[in-house]
């Protein structure tokens, strides 16, 4: 690969040699012209001393330092670049491969609750059933990701490194949810501009350690961001948000919602998603962030009833 650039240049230069010179060479001994890959200085003395041509030819050095110490093309033949696979195009993520589904987030009186199930799907196959899609970032922030799992893992790497870096000064400054959310949105928008997006939709949830002001914000693979009292990504945006909005329509409703009610609400929505989102899982992780920090847990959908399925063709055993 490293040889291609300049050696190609040499070849081109050779081909553009004045034809008169080539003719001279040909006239005297065709063998030398055919074998050489090096540039020759075109001088009158060179041309006139016909009988010395062969000798001069063999001691002419390659004037390009790039070629020094490398196998000579005239001895070993041109370098074969083909095995380096240079001809393959650079590929960007065109679609998510292993995916996570919805993330839910609800603000309440003095904090936020966020939840995401533990399934990672490969197409419609529930490939992994124990994947953690919530990441605690610092003391008062949790980031939940839907979409491509490997991109999520890369983002987790960035966030972990960011936090390590942030701790080096050992001062009283920390990154909280608004800062973490802005950082993620910048990363995602930058990648979108490279036409190589991180294929995720992400919720950042947090609470201010001083005021306990809850924070909840969304950002997707295009870098689009918005905030609301209740948010959901993926299928949850269609199935859960209508339910969530019935309970937390605005910030006033947030200030009246207790933590217990918010937890029940998320449980209800996760259950609906388990019933109706074919990419969802029965086990999910949740995190509650208040001014006191982060509490996390895991839960399974309870009190399931699949009675409705008896009425639907395609579910369970068919008795025709």
């Amino acid at each position, binding site marked *: 690969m490293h040889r291609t650039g300049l050696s190609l240049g040499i070849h081109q230069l050779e081909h553009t040699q004045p034809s008169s010179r080539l003719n001279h060479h040909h006239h005297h001994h065709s063998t030398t012209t055919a074998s050489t890959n090096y540039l020759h200085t075109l001088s009158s003395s060179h041309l006139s001393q016909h009988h010395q041509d062969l000798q001069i030819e063999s001691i002419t050095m390659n004037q390009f330092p790039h070629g020094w110490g490398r196998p000579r093309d005239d001895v070993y033949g041109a370098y074969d670049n083909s095995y380096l696979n240079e001809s393959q195009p650079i590929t960007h993520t065109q679609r998510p491969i292993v995916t996570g589904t919805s993330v839910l987030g609800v603000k309440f009186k003095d904090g936020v609750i966020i939840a995401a199930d533990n399934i990672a799907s490969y197409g419609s196959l529930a490939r992994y059933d124990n994947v953690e899609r919530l990441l605690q970032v610092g003391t008062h922030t949790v980031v939940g990701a839907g979409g491509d799992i490997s991109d999520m893992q890369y983002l987790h790497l960035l966030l972990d490194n960011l936090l390590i870096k942030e701790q080096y*000064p050992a*001062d*009283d*400054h920390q*990154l909280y949810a*608004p*800062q973490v959310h*802005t*950082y993620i949105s*910048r990363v995602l928008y930058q990648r979108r501009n490279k036409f190589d997006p991180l294929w995720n939709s992400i919720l950042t949830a947090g609470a201010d350690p001083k005021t306990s002001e809850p924070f909840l914000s969304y950002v997707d693979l295009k870098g689009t961001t918005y905030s609301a009292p209740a948010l959901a990504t993926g299928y949850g945006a269609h199935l859960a948000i209508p339910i969530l909005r019935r309970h937390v329509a605005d910030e006033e409703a947030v200030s009246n919602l207790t933590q217990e009610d918010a937890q029940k609400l998320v449980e209800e929505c996760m259950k609906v998603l388990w019933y109706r989102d074919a990419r969802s899982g029965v086990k999910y992780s949740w995190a509650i962030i208040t001014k006191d920090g982060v509490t996390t847990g895991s839960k399974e959908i309870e009190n399931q009833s699949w009675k409705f399925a008896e009425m639907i063709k395609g579910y369970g055993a068919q008795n025709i």
Partner: protein
Amino acid sequence: MFRNNYDNDSVTFSPQGRIFQVEYALEAIKQGSAAVGLRSKTHVALVALKRNAEELGSYQKKIIPIDKHLGVALAGLSPDARVLSNFMRQQSMASRLLYKRPVPVARVVNAIADKAQVNTQHYGKRPYGVGLLIAGVDETGPHLWEFQPSGQILEYFGAAIGARSQSARTYLERSFESFPDVSRDELVLHGLKALRDTLQQDRELTTENTSIAIVGIGEDLKQYDGPRVKRFLDLLGEDGTRSQRAARLDTAMDVGGGADDDDDELAGLLGPGEGTSAMDTTE
């Protein structure tokens, strides 16, 4: 004949263990006119004395705003201050862009300290010939830092750099214990009084040569130059802008009541109606 052989670059120690280039840089600060910084619980103020090269010329800028929450006052080579302040502005922008967070004061001060220290350790480089007072407010409150070309940074309640700044420091040392609870205007007045002490005998503080900047919690950095300085100089009083204060202090010291005298003077000048709200009318 007896040339100093140990000051050709900043990487050679003298036999006494000194780096002369760094010491010369520290001297360059003293060539610049004075700048004073001081801090209360809510505000930081910078007060600086501008110089003009000749009577008919303009005055050299002494205070450089960096961001809404951050500003610096300089003493020494102003081109070097430009380099450092441009760098601080970059840091500030990067912080706002990447995190939507005003850059923490200590972080940006550390960044210029690292930058300056590198220059003291590489052949072919030279130390910056400028000292800075950095005033800023962040999540942890108001802060005042001093930056030196050696790469040293120090946080202060009150600090002064530049020509004859020892006089200002003497004033600050006498009165800094009252700073935490003073009002915005009083803080500036203390700054002006400190700055006044650096003046030569025949000079006085004027609207032309005085530069002021203040930043507070929940209050953006505001700079006062030219006619806008007048209100503060008026608070200082007719006599106050003159430079005989140093002499007055000396006699007061002998009596032992210099500081008290000063506070009475201030209370009288401010009056009951003077407060932060009065500031808003200036612009």
